[in-house]
C-alpha cells in the first residue's frame, strides 16, 4: 500500500513559469507606504480610487526579472494574514454562519488566484480561469475574484503604463470631465447618476440594487444616503488658472465676463466664487465685503450669548465661513499694505516685496499673503514675482485651511455648550413638573379622604334614621342623600 505523499504546503498552483517558491514575493511593503498614507486614508471606496486616483504603483521586486506592481491603496496585503479590509468587504467568510466558508477557505481562494495571476503577469487572469481551478461554489469565488481585481491585486500590471499616459493627458485637459466613477459594490456595474451610500459598511449601491433591496442583512434602506454623482465633482483650480484669474481681475476690474474669457476654462460664476474664496480677495473689492463679514460675526456672538433662543446657530456659521475664509484678523494690515504699494513706485514695491518674502518666509506664512497681495497689485510684476506669488499663494491656502479648521472647532465647541445649556433647562423644567405632580397627588389624596369621611357620615345618618323612626313612631321625611 502506497503511503500518501506529504500534503503540499498550499493549494495546487499552476505556475510553471515561476521557478522560485511564491513566498519570496514580499508584498507587505511599509517602506513604499510613505506617500500612500493619504490615498489609503481617503480611499474607502476602492473601485473609484483605483481608477481615478493617480495610482502610485509600489514596485515590489519579484524573484524573477519582472516586477509586480499593486496600487498603493492595496499596500496592506500580505500573504500571511487576512487584513481588515478583506474581512470588511467579504464578510461571508468571516461571520461563522457556514462551516465551510471560513477564513481558511478565503485564504485558499485568494492565494490561488493571486499566485496564478503572478505566474503569468503579462496576461490578465479571467474569472473562468480562476473558478475552474478552485473547489467551491462559483458565487463566492466570483466575489473574491472581483474584490481582488478591484483592489488591483490581480490584473493590474498591464494598466500601469497606459494609465500614466492618460493621467498626463487628462491633467492638461479640463478637470471638469473627471468624474470619479462609482461602481456599485453589489452588481459591479457603474453607478451612473445616483448612488446610495452607507457608512455602516462602506457600500455603495446603484439605484437598481438599492431599490431591489439587495444589500446584506443588517442594513436597512434607511441606512443609505442618496448621493448624486454630479454633486461630487470637485474641480480644483490650478495655479495657472488662479494666476490668470488674478491678472484678469487686475486688468478688467469687475467685468466678470471679460475675466472669465481671460481665464478660459471657467465660467463667470466660478471665477467670482473662486475669487471670493481667495484669502486676500476681499481687499480688491474694498471694505464693503469686510464690513459684511463683521455683521455675521456679531450675529453669531448674539446667538451664543442667548442660549434660550430657538434660532439655529448652525445656519449662520457656514455662511460666515463662506464669506470670510480667514483674513479678518489681518484685514486692517493688508489694507495698509495695499495702500502703501499703490502709493509707492513699482520698483520700490517689488524690492520691498522680495525683502519681505525672504525675511518673513520662515517666520510667518501670513506675511506671504501680504507680499503676494503686494506682488499681485504690482503692474510690472515679472515672471519671478508670479512664481513667488503662486508659491506664497499655496502657503496662504494651507494657512487658510488650518485657520478654517480652528474656526470649525470653535464653532463646534459653542454648539455643544448651547446644547448643554438647553438640556439643563429642560431638566429643570422636568424637576419642576415633578414637584407639581407631587402636590397634585397630595391634594387628590386629601380629597379622597374627605370623600370617604363624607360617605361615612352619610352611612351613620342612614343608620340613625330607623332608630329615630322606632323612637318617634312618626314618619320621617326621607332625606335626600347628597352623594
Amino acid at each position, binding site marked *: *500500500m502506497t503511503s500518501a*505523499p506529504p500534503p503540499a504546503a498550499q493549494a495546487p498552483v499552476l505556475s510553471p513559469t515561476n521557478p522560485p517558491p511564491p513566498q519570496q514575493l514580499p508584498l507587505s511593503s511599509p517602506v513604499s507606504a510613505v506617500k500612500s498614507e493619504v490615498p489609503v486614508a481617503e480611499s474607502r471606496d476602492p473601485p473609484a480610487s483605483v481608477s481615478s486616483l493617480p495610482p502610485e504603483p509600489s514596485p515590489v521586486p519579484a524573484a524573477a526579472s519582472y516586477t509586480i506592481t499593486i496600487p498603493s491603496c492595496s499596500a496592506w496585503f500580505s500573504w500571511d494574514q487576512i487584513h481588515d479590509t478583506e474581512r470588511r468587504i467579504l464578510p461571508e467568510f468571516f461571520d461563522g454562519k457556514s*462551516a465551510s466558508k471560513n477564513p481558511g477557505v478565503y485564504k485558499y481562494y485568494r492565494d490561488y488566484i493571486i499566485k496564478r495571476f503572478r505566474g503569468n503577469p503579462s496576461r490578465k487572469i479571467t474569472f*473562468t480561469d480562476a473558478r*475552474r*481551478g478552485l473547489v467551491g*461554489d462559483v*458565487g463566492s469565488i466570483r466575489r473574491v475574484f472581483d474584490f481582488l481585481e478591484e483592489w488591483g491585486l490581480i490584473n493590474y500590471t498591464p494598466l500601469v503604463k497606459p494609465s500614466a499616459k492618460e493621467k498626463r493627458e487628462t491633467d492638461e485637459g479640463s478637470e471638469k470631465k473627471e468624474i470619479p466613477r462609482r461602481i456599485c459594490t453589489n452588481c459591479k456595474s457603474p453607478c451612473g447618476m445616483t448612488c446610495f451610500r452607507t457608512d455602516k459598511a462602506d457600500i455603495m449601491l446603484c439605484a437598481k440594487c438599492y431599490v431591489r433591496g*439587495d444589500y446584506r442583512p443588517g442594513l436597512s434602506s434607511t441606512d443609505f444616503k442618496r448621493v448624486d454623482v454630479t454633486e461630487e465633482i470637485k474641480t480644483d483650480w490650478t495655479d495657472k488658472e488662479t494666476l490668470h484669474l488674478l491678472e484678469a481681475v487686475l486688468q478688467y476690474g469687475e467685468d466678470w465676463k471679460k475675466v472669465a474669457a481671460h481665464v478660459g476654462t471657467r465660467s463667470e460664476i466660478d471665477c467670482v466664487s473662486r475669487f471670493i474664496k481667495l484669502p486676500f480677495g476681499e481687499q480688491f473689492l474694498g471694505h464693503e465685503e469686510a464690513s459684511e463679514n463683521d455683521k455675521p460675526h456679531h450675529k453669531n456672538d448674539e446667538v451664543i450669548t442667548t442660549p434660550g433662543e430657538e434660532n439655529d446657530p448652525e445656519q449662520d456659521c457656514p455662511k460666515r465661513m463662506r464669506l470670510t475664509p480667514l483674513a479678518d484678523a489681518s484685514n486692517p494690515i493688508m489694507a495698509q499694505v495695499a495702500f502703501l504699494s499703490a502709493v509707492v513706485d513699482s520698483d520700490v514695491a517689488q524690492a520691498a516685496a522680495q525683502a519681505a518674502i525672504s525675511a518673513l518666509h520662515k517666520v510667518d506664512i501670513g506675511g506671504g499673503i501680504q507680499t503676494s497681495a503686494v506682488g499681485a497689485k504690482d503692474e510690472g510684476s515679472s515672471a519671478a514675482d508670479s512664481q513667488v506669488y503662486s508659491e506664497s499663494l499655496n502657503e496662504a491656502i494651507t494657512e487658510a485651511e488650518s485657520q478654517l479648521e480652528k474656526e470649525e472647532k470653535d464653532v463646534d465647541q459653542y454648539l455643544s455648550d448651547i446644547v448643554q445649556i438647553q438640556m439643563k433647562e429642560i431638566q429643570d423644567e422636568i424637576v419642576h413638573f415633578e414637584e407639581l405632580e407631587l402636590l397634585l397627588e397630595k391634594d387628590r389624596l386629601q380629597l379622597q379622604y374627605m370623600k370617604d369621611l363624607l360617605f361615612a357620615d352619610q352611612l351613620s345618618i342612614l343608620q340613625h334614621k330607623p332608630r329615630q323612626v322606632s323612637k318617634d313612631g312618626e314618619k320621617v321625611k326621607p332625606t335626600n342623600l347628597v352623594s
Partner: protein
Amino acid sequence: KFRMPTAENLVPIRLDIDIDGQRFKDAFTWNPSDPDSEVSNFAKRTVKDLKLPPAFVTQISQSIQTQLAEFHSFEGQDMHIKEKIVPLKIDLRVNNTVIRDQFLWDVSNLESDPEEFARTFCQDMDIGDPEVGPAIAVSIREQLYEIATQSVSSAREARVGKKGRRGSDIVANSKAGNTVDLGKLFGSKGSVIRKRKEWYLYEPIVDILSNEEVGALDAREELNAR
C-alpha cells in the same frame, strides 16, 4: 425537508452545449440562493473569458436556470434521511489526469463538505492540475443530489402506500442494494477495519496520461456523443 445533505446547500451544474459544431462542456457548483441576475452575469462573463461566440450566452443562462429550477422544485418537499452510508464512486478524466476512486459517504450527515474532500484529495495525492479539484467536488455533489432526489420520491411513496405497509420497508427494499448494512459491519462479528484483500478496491488511482492518449480518448468521446 429537501436539501443537499451537505453543510452548504450548493447545486452541481453541468453544461454541455453545442452550437454550430462548437461544443462547450463545463461543470461547477452553484449557490441556489444567489440572485437570478448572477446567472446572466456569469454566462456573459464566461463567454467573454473564453471568447465563445455570443450565441452561447443565452444557452448557458437557460441551461443553468433549468437546472436551478429543477432543484427549486424539489425544495418544498419532504425527504427521508435515514442513517445511510453509501459508496460513492469517482471516475473522471480531467485534461491529462485520470482519477478513479470509491469511498463510503454518510448521507445523513448534513455537515458534510464535498469541497473540503476534493481539496484534501488533491493535496494528498499531489495533483498538479488545479481543475481536478472542482471536478471531483461536482461529481460527489451530483451523486449526492441523485440520492437526495431519490429519497424525496421514496418519501412520497411511503406516504402514498399506507395500510399495513410501513414506509421504512419500502425504503429498505429499494435501497438494500446500495446501503451498507451498518449492523453487519459494526456488529459483534464484524470489525471497522477493512480486510486487507479489500484495500485495493478503495484505493484511489491517479493516472497521468500522455497527450496522444488524451487525444485518442477525446476523439472516441466525440464519436460516442454523435
